[in-house]
């Protein structure tokens, strides 16, 4: 069997999401100094000998960064090591506004020094495997022992379900992980000819951020209406209807006659050479710019570690502790989880990260974890100035997360947009400061 070099392995596992872009521009850390250059020589054996109790966290996104911070807040005698290839945190929430030029990618980009101030030890490397029986996380040939592990791997893409795309989605822009792809998609949108066609595809549920594609449609449509009034935006939605905040989005779309929304139009295949997308039902479309958001599953490490269910997509967890139902001692939070009546959102990942952290601290101290539930506040910008929101709160009933209530904003408004700015400054601080 041909031995894969560490460089190759890291590129295919944690970094494959950047596709064929080559990692230029912002967010270089993921492909540049971060994972591959941070350590001069690949390490073998025990990378950092464990002397006391240790929690390892895989993934420094909304769930993982939060969990790492809150374990330290809960019990600073517990060592926390966070594995995150990227040296920067780029917020997916608000990244749709980078496409329309309403927001800059810089405003959404943060460093990890806040976590370091809490004593979180950050290694800018990707976990390559988990050995649950030995309670070790592997980084190539090296390993880190843990007492408890928190896995927050986000999502990865099921390119195999979109014929015509390569195994790593080379040449396709999903921009479904904020960073270089967001900037590139914005550039292509701006370079599109007036009278051109922008095609956006929405994957079948479940996927990261239910209203995300529809907010993106608003931002692209607003931009085109303003700058390229003869251009069109064709949406091929695999779902039968708008998946989230449907009434509010439909009301917003009245302002954008350039949107051609086609539900029940799952992508059958793509031809990058001829620039054609063929849905299972309905007409083939030709694009000038394609934003294909592919079907999704839990991040690769969750699949490798067999934390996923029979369909190899999502991780089932205990609703109180977020402990994996398949492997004890491993907690999974964020988009990678399934079975809770909650959306896959950054806010939910942040809530799960906190609750799992508190559970882990209690368990490591021999105490029963409290029964806590998450909440979700979700804003979508429908133009350059107005936004809508949906809010859900939950409780625990017989050990399961159950929804208390869902509320929608009655209409789009500048006030809701203002609230979303308040939300982002608070929650970014909660995750990273």
């Amino acid at each position, binding site marked *: 069997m041909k031995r894969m070099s560490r460089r190759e392995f890291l590129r295919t596992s944690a970094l494959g999401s950047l596709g064929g872009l080559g990692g230029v521009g912002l967010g270089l850390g993921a492909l540049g100094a971060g994972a591959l250059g941070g350590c001069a020589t690949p390490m073998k054996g025990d990378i950092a000998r464990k*002397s*006391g*109790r240790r929690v390892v966290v895989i993934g420094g996104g909304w769930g993982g960064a939060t969990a790492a911070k*809150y374990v330290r*807040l*809960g*019990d*600073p*005698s*517990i060592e926390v090591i966070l594995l995150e290839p990227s040296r920067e945190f780029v917020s997916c929430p608000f990244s749709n506004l980078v496409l329309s030029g309403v927001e800059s990618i810089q405003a959404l980009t943060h460093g990890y020094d806040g976590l370091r101030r809490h004593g979180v030890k950050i290694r800018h490397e990707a976990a390559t495997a988990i050995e649950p029986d030995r309670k070790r996380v592997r980084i190539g040939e090296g390993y880190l022992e843990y007492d408890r592990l928190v896995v927050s791997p986000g999502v990865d893409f099921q390119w195999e379900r979109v014929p015509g795309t390569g195994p790593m989605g080379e040449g396709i822009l999903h921009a479904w992980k904020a960073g270089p792809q967001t900037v590139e998609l914005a550039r292509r949108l701006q370079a599109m000819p007036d009278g051109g066609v922008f095609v956006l595809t929405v994957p079948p549920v479940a996927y990261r951020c239910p209203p995300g594609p529809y907010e993106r449609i608003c931002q692209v449509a607003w931009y085109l209406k303003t700058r390229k009034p003869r251009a069109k935006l064709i949406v091929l939605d695999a779902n039968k209807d708008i998946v989230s905040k449907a009434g509010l989005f439909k009301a917003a779309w009245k302002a954008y006659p350039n949107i051609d929304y086609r539900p029940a139009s799952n992508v059958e295949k793509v031809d990058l050479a001829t620039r054609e997308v063929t849905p299972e039902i309905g007409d083939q479309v030709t694009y000038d710019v394609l934003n294909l958001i592919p079907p999704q599953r839990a991040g690769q490490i969750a699949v490798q570690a067999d934390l996923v269910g029979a369909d190899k997509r999502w991780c089932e967890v205990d609703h109180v502790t977020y402990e994996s139902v398949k492997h004890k001692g491993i907690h999974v939070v964020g988009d990678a989880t399934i079975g809770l009546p909650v959306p896959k959102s950054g*806010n939910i990942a*942040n*809530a799960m990260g*906190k*609750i799992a952290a*508190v559970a882990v*601290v209690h368990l*490591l*101290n*021999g105490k029963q974890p*409290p029964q*806590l*539930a*998450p*909440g979700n*506040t979700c804003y979508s910008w429908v133009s350059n100035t107005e936004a809508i*929101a*949906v*809010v*859900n*709160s*939950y*409780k625990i009933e017989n050990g399961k997360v159950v929804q*208390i*209530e*869902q*509320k*929608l*904003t*009655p209409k789009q408004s500048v*006030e809701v947009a*203002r*609230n979303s*700015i*308040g*939300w982002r*400054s*608070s*929650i970014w*601080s*909660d995750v990273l*400061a």
Partner: protein
Amino acid sequence: MVRLGRLLAGCAAVTLVLAGGRAAAGPLDTPGAAKALVCSACHGFAGQSPSDTMPIIAGMLPEYFKKAIRDYAGGKRPSPEMEPYSKMVLQFGLDEIAQYFADQKRQPTSIKVDPAVVARGKAASTQCVICHGPDGKGDPARGIPDLRGQPPAYLRSQMVLFKADQRSPGDDALKALKALFKTLPDEMFADLAAYYSSLR
């Protein structure tokens, strides 16, 4: 020699585990802290909101907090954001969560305000001191909140609601306040908000 070293290290590790790790109580150690975890996403850790639109609830009077939660849950303070969360607070324990926030030390907002706007607000605040005091500290005995250092956008948003009688309609304690706001022009609210936000 090596074996002795390992034995000592082993003993130290066991001692550390038995000791339970740490002596002093940490910031997440009270039941109220755990139940209030979800709130930090908008209101900041320990209720110290870094945002302009969500209020600082650290150090809030318990009765004021509880009334706000009840009013949000009952639809008297219309807020799609707060209504589901207020019901969550009621579900998990209003008294405990109120006490947790009351016990937290409050810092003023880090949101900056324009000194010229603050000066206009100060000049406009002569009637406000009747209830909120000359220093904006309020009066706990009468349930009048401390406005000092709250973020300006939040303060302004509440003034808009008071003027439109959309915040707790029919609440007798707010009658005089709302009557006063009805006489004020909307443009004055940002000035008043900046002034009270600037107070320390």
